[in-house]
């Protein structure tokens, strides 16, 4: 069998931290080869080795049977290896063609020859069914199309081995389907693909073989047709994974959060939360299901004091907290796992230890008279890092930026839960995480509930809401359209509610709200 790429026994070390240890990956010509591993398992490191961004300490790389030394990305390009990065590397106010030729601009009498380049882009687009307009500006096109521009970029440079790094992370379901078709098309045209992902269903759908790595170790390669998601998940995390989280029946007690006819507007003054009522009791998890953009963000921001309330009341343990400053609200007993961990959850340029102190840095015993005791900060951080299994290169001193998404999230959850709040708000707590991390986070949320805390979960994933919540409140167009019991509902019913069809509508034609 002909291999186009062979990475044999690769080892890469950063200081004392072994990111890759004896990993072997062999890519056959014309296959889609998935590279599976948890966040932080070493997938990106391995691909950066292949792409020439890192030099391995040990191991061999062969391309089309020949030993090669890939010293920088240019060498990789020349060998026909192209990479579609997770975060696109595009200049927003340049056109598609300008972006594609960036770095190797074709010239004609000293000026850039855009026309010929655009023609070539058009041809590539048609050959592979990518449907990209060479003259469109990047800022005007959808995320899915931007990704296709990245694909053309690699093709334009003559790549026949394409690495996709978590390509579906920012795509809509339709765009994901399209991408899968494009990948199959690329294979038909004789390309070979490495697909980096932790999404099992995608692997099952498109890949031919899967190489699994766990904590930097190569676990092995399996043929997709001969495996199943459960087995893959086990290989990935090294133990059995329960897709359905076990939990005992809830035992709701007194009301912790009470929201009474709340209205909130967004930055443009448009009312996003309309007359919303919601109660969360101690010892229960209320899940808010809904399609993105139906007022979830504004609702959380209003509860936590980050956004002004237009009208209505928010009560915590019977005390009115409407319009208080964020710190006062935090101190009155709310823990908040924000939906965007990079924007709100972390100061990425701070060490992770300092981030763990983000809500308590000003309080005793961490600080006294305005002076922070960093020894105590690091002690506390180490405890949380250990308890919540936050993995990083240099422990509490690692920059938050250098941690993988799952580990960043675990650190945030540790910080918020350890403050022992009465109400824990978890907004999209598992977005972009692998099954192992998701399971861990769900367990922690349920643990809080069992300790008698109130938990408010906001999620766009129906699975998650149905799995974790004791009650599901469906939000639509800024109000709670209905509250259902997860045991008594199904995805179809929730889907209808999320689309604005109240359950009475099914019986009463023309019913309102």
């Amino acid at each position, binding site marked *: 069998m002909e291999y186009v790429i062979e990475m044999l026994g690769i080892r890469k070390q950063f200081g004392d931290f072994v990111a890759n240890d004896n990993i072997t990956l062999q890519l056959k010509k014309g296959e889609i080869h998935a590279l599976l591993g948890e966040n932080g398992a070493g997938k990106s490191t391995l691909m950066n080795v292949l792409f020439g961004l890192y030099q391995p300490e040990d191991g061999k790389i062969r391309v089309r049977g020949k030993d090669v030394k890939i010293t920088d990305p240019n060498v990789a390009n020349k060998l026909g290896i192209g990479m579609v990065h997770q975060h696109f590397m595009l200049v927003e106010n340049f056109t598609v063609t300008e972006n594609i030729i960036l770095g190797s601009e074709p010239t004609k009498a000293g000026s850039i020859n855009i026309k010929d380049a655009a023609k070539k882009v058009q041809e590539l687009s048609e050959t592979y069914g990518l449907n990209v307009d060479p003259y469109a500006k990047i800022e005007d096109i959808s995320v899915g199309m931007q990704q296709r521009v990245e694909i053309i970029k690699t093709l334009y440079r003559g790549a026949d081995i394409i690495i996709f790094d978590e390509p579906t992370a920012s795509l809509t379901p339709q765009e994901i389907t399209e991408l899968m078709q494009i990948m199959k098309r690329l294979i038909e045209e004789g390309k070979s693909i490495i697909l980096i992902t932790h999404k099992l269903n995608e692997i099952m759908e498109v890949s031919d073989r899967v190489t699994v790595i766990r904590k930097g170790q190569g676990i092995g390669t399996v043929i997709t047709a001969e495996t199943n998601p459960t087995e893959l998940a086990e290989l990935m995390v090294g133990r059995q994974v329960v897709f359905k989280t076990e939990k005992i029946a809830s035992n709701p007690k007194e009301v912790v959060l009470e929201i009474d006819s709340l209205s909130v507007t967004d930055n443009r003054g448009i009312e996003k939360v309309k007359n919303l009522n919601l109660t969360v009791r101690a010892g229960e998890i209320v899940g808010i299901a809904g399609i993105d953009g139906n007022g979830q963000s504004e609702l959380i921001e209003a509860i936590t004091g980050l956004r002004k309330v237009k009208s209505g009341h928010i009560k915590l343990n019977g005390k009115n907290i409407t319009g208080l400053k964020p710190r006062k609200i935090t101190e009155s007993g709310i823990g908040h796992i924000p939906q965007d961990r990079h*924007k*709100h959850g972390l*100061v990425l*340029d701070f060490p992770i230890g300092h981030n763990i102190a983000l809500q308590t840095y000003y309080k005793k015993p961490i600080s006294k008279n305005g002076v*922070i005791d960093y020894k105590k900060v690091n002690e506390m951080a180490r405890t949380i890092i250990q308890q919540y299994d936050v993995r990083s290169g240099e422990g509490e001193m690692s920059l938050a930026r250098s941690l993988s998404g799952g580990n960043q999230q675990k650190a945030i959850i540790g910080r918020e839960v350890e403050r022992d709040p009465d109400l824990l708000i978890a907004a999209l707590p598992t977005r972009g995480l692998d099954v192992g991390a998701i399971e861990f986070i769900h367990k922690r949320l349920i643990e809080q509930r069992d300790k008698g805390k109130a938990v408010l979960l906001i999620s766009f994933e129906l699975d998650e809401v149905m799995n974790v919540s004791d009650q599901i409140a469906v939000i639509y167009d800024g109000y709670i359209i209905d509250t259902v019991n997860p045991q008594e509902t199904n995805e179809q019913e929730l889907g209808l509610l999320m689309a604005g069809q109240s359950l009475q509508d099914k019986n009463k034609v023309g019913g309102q709200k």
Partner: protein
Amino acid sequence: MSKRLVNILVPLISILLGLIIGAIVMAVSGFNPIDGYVALWNGIFMDTYTLGETIRQITPYVFSGLAVAFAFRTGLFNIGVEGQLIMGWLAAAWVGQAFELPAVLHVPLALLAAAVAGALWAFIPGLLKAKLQVHEVIVTIMMNYIALHVANALIGVISGGEERTEKIHESASLRSDFLETMTDYSRLHWGFIIALLAVIVMWFILQKTTLGYELKAVGFNKNASEYAGMNVNKNIILAMVISGAFAGLGGAMEALGTFENMSKLHASTGIGFDGIAVALLGANQPFGVLLGAILFGALKNGGLNMPSEAGVPTEIVSIVIALIIFFVASGYIIRVALNQFGKKRKEEK
């Protein structure tokens, strides 16, 4: 190559390269580079007098460097250090000559006045940035011009139409007989001790206090800071105010030490702008700023000796000094070169 060795080698090689290119410039222009550098060396270290003058020259650079670096560390670009320094200079000069107090009160009061004047001058851009999102670079640049001409006008008012303010009272002066006799009557004053204290103060604020934690957090990520319950606007203003206070104290060094008055300025002093280079040389670290200021001040003062002793015109002197600083600032290039060198050696083995 060990990290430590690289860290020592980089600045040394940088200075050496700067000196070599500077020598070429002098040679091409028809001057003897060796004579030129001997004159530079003598201008820095020749005797106690020049050494005293060198330290005096370094002192205000420490403050302007700290002012820029402090703002940088909190995510702000304070180009208005020049104007804040001018206002501090004027305030200290006025307090120094207008009141008669015992020295224990007079010196601190004059210093305080300078710090407050600089802080107020920086408060305006801080406020505009926090409340109206006006970019601080634009406002601080403009505030420099305003400071220059407002100060000149006020000097006229204070002195009753003269070109300079009256000499400050002895009780407000940072000069001392002790330092003067020790350094052969140079203008060295106690300001360098205050500068060293300021270095420690900045380090302490940024590394040890909740205030520093907040200022840095706001500088890095406003959203996360707001989420954590910090008052973002307050912190932006405070960062500018503290930066401005450092700048104002730099002005006080001139008012209470070097000149003991303030003359009308025809143009910017340049100290504030050089502070940007000093801060960058010092990687925005307080102790780095101190080293940067020492290099900057020493070269400036030593350069003054080159025209008289070696006949190198001031224009060439400026070019040579700029080259040395340029190479120190571009230490990155040397770091890369050293890395390549280290790699090759490893491969040969």
